[in-house]
């Protein structure tokens, strides 16, 4: 076998890629043929040199901004997960409310503490004190009482029953449920019958309880109650559509493929808006904070107006206020990036309007101390935290020696789309 120099199988064998009978045959050939053995050894040596040389090529990490974005990717997923959890729990709460409504048990939600007080002792009294007349123990959870029963109850020896209950094991429970008398009256929504145990609730009260609970609980309340959820979801959806529409007009600088549909961010909420020019590259660039491309539904960088300061500014201490304002104005670009970063991450939150009021203390060397968000109407923690972090990094004019200055400063975000 002298043509092995031209046989790719021999190279594969030398590089350890050949298996089976062919490999066994070449192994035997190596033992018999020194020339072949030398050739295989040369290939292996060359392979080793190639490997060592090529692996010494510089390994460069990704640009910092890209790395940061990639590290944020799992969090973005988490956000969606938590959104779904919130949504599901909202649905569950609404469902529970519906069930309660249909089961006519509003009193359980309305006065959860009162129910056991009446149920437990009565049950025990009935079980452990057979001499207690049955008529005197109305069935638990009966809302309306028959006149007969009411009469029987009113005639029953209250104190005797109470004492028996106290001496028995159930007596402990009777301590939980105070025996009604003139000094210790039950609340007005409970039955006035001493050992009746049933919670008497007016139907109106129950109905009111339902209407309050359902609209002010869980996700429904978070979305503004009533039809708020639907309304706001529609609003968010429409908002996305508008932005995507904008994206159609946008042009990118270096698309991979002009006809490619929008990828990931943007373009998938509605059909319109997908397929801006140079979408793939814009998709990449859009994720970077530099915003090299604005197509693919990523929106215009100037889609929010940011207004710092105003009537709510507060300075406690001696400092050049205008100089402080100048520092903030100079950092507006960073504040804007806080907004854009969030808007890129979640297209549904693109329309964010509101105000973030930041408080901090300007200390030695103009450093920002105890920076926090005092109040916010944005309802977006990521932006709020980002704004707070920016403030904490800035260097303000130094106050007079030994003095710190407390500042309260509002930043207004107004979506212009």
């Amino acid at each position, binding site marked *: 076998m002298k043509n092995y120099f031209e046989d790719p*199988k021999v190279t594969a064998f030398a590089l350890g890629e050949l298996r089976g009978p062919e490999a066994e045959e070449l192994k035997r050939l190596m033992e018999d043929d020194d020339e072949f053995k030398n050739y295989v050894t040369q290939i292996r040596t060359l392979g080793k040199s190639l490997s060592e040389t*090529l692996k010494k090529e510089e390994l460069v990490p*990704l640009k910092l901004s890209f790395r940061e974005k990639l590290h944020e990717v799992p969090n973005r997923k988490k956000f969606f997960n938590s959104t779904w959890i919130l949504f599901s729990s909202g649905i569950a709460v609404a469902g529970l409310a519906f069930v309660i409504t249909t089961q006519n048990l509003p009193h359980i939600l309305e006065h959860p503490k009162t129910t056991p007080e009446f149920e437990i002792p009565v049950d025990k009294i009935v079980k452990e004190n057979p001499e207690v007349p049955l008529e005197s123990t109305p069935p638990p959870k009966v809302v309306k009482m028959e006149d007969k029963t009411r009469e029987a109850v009113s005639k029953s020896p209250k104190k005797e029953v109470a004492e028996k209950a106290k001496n028995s094991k159930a007596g402990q429970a009777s301590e939980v449920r105070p025996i009604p008398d003139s000094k210790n009256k039950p609340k007005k929504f409970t039955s006035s019958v001493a050992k009746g145990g049933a919670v008497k609730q007016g139907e109106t009260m129950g109905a009111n309880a339902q209407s309050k609970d359902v609209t002010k609980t869980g996700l429904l309340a978070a979305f503004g109650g009533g039809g708020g959820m639907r309304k706001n979801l529609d609003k968010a959806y429409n908002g996305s559509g508008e932005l995507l529409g904008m994206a159609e007009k946008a042009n990118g600088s270096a698309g991979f*493929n002009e006809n490619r549909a929008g990828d990931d961010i943007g373009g998938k909420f509605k059909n319109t808006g997908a397929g801006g020019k140079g979408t793939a590259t814009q998709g990449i660039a859009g994720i970077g904070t530099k915003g090299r491309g604005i197509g693919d539904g990523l929106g215009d960088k100037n889609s929010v107006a940011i207004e710092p300061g105003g009537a709510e500014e507060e300075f406690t201490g001696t400092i050049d206020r205008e100089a402080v304002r100048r520092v903030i104005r100079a950092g507006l670009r960073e504040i804007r990036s806080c907004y854009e970063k969030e808007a890129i991450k979640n297209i549904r939150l693109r329309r964010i309007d509101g105000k973030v009021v930041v408080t901090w203390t300007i200390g030695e060397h103009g450093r920002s101390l105890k920076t926090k968000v005092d109040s916010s109407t944005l309802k977006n923690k990521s932006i709020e935290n980002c704004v707070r972090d920016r403030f904490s990094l800035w260097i303000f004019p130094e106050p007079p020696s030994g003095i710190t200055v407390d500042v309260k400063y509002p930043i207004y975000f107004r979506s212009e789309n």
Partner: protein
Amino acid sequence: MNKNQWFAEILRTYEKRLLRFALSKVPKDLAHEIVQETFLRLWRESLNRIEGREGPWLFRVTRNLCLDWLKGEGKRKSSRVDDLPLVASEALVLNKMLQAEEEERILQMIGHLDEIHQEVIRLKFQEDFSYKEISEITGHSVSYVGVLIHEAIVSLRKSLLPKGKKAQGDSV
């Protein structure tokens, strides 16, 4: 291991290697973007679908994105990969600064190979992928990968051997 941990691990393992691979094909800025896009696509992929063979998958996506760009730039005259003109890699240029003459010589020889040969040589010897994995990354058949590597090896051997020893079996 949940998906977040998995993703972080993959990012740590392949970030620099993918960038090195991309740098051998496209300009620096674009290489960064391409690698980022590759990882974004990885995140969108189902874990079950690619777990255990992330390497070939990532290199394939990176390669395809590089080729997309090359297509867009008109750097490819036809759809055949082996028509690609020789593009000296940035890494090669960087390595010229190294003093190790032999290494530089090897890199120069690699730089003189066709891009299609360069690619398989890098995947085999730089990234330690098997023929099968290279086949998965490039879309070539396993046997064609074997042929390409053989051709590249024969050519390199011919260039690197002392002139007196060139007589035996050199075909490329």
